[in-house]
């Protein structure tokens, strides 16, 4: 998250909106944004419906055995079509902001 915030201007420059999604309620995300200084949008899927519809539910992996989202990144073009997906095999391995930006650049180059 911190490294994403540091690269936010580069997402803006590409016309790509950065959106973070978790099962955290809005109040918690508001706190996190304020404390850490994040300025991009956070969405709260407390009912797990979206996480489930994207098949990203990780059962009993959260605090107190709650169901949470597994880490995943999707680059959607302006029509909402998926152009790039990253489903990490390990929660210790996340896509870096550089990888996300490279995926966007590759997709935009392909479109031209």
């Amino acid at each position, binding site marked *: 998250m911190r490294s994403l915030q540091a690269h936010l201007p580069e997402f803006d420059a590409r016309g790509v909106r950065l959106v973070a999604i978790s099962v955290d309620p809005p109040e918690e995300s508001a706190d996190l944004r304020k404390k850490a200084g994040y300025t991009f949008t956070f969405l709260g899927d407390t009912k797990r*419906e979206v996480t489930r519809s994207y098949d990203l539910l990780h059962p009993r992996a959260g605090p107190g055995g709650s169901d949470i989202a597994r880490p995943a990144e999707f680059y959607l073009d302006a029509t909402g079509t998926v152009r790039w997906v990253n489903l990490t095999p390990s929660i210790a391995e996340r896509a870096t902001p550089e990888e996300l930006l490279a995926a966007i650049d590759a997709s935009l180059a392909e479109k031209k």
Partner: protein
Amino acid sequence: MKRRWPYSIWLGLAVVLAAPVLYLTVLVPNPATRAMPWPSLLLFAVGVALLLHGLLRAWRAPQVYRGKVVAAIALASGLAVTGFFCWGLFYAARQVPDSLGAPRVGQLAPDFTLPDQDGRPVSLAQLLASPHASNGAMLVFYRGGW
């Protein structure tokens, strides 16, 4: 003559304990070192080597060094901490669902409406229509801020 403690027992324990602390405080925030934390793995190796060194001293030169039992317990603890760390990183962290039903490249991402940080409902279509999304959106699903 009073027998000494092999210093490598205490140093080894300190180094082994420093490894996970280094991982959590310095290496986790960086995606590259989070996945492959070489500095912590190196510290574990050095720490266990020191503990082994202490054990050998205590057992091979008991007339000079004390701590036969303490050194054995220290080495066992060091190995346990190292083992737990490696288990977590190389096994437990990899127990993520396959997510075979996740939207694939070329598919339309399912639309949704979710509350943002201020509790306002926002749909994916709205996000994609916003002025900052002329080239789409990057959806980052994460495990939560806990």
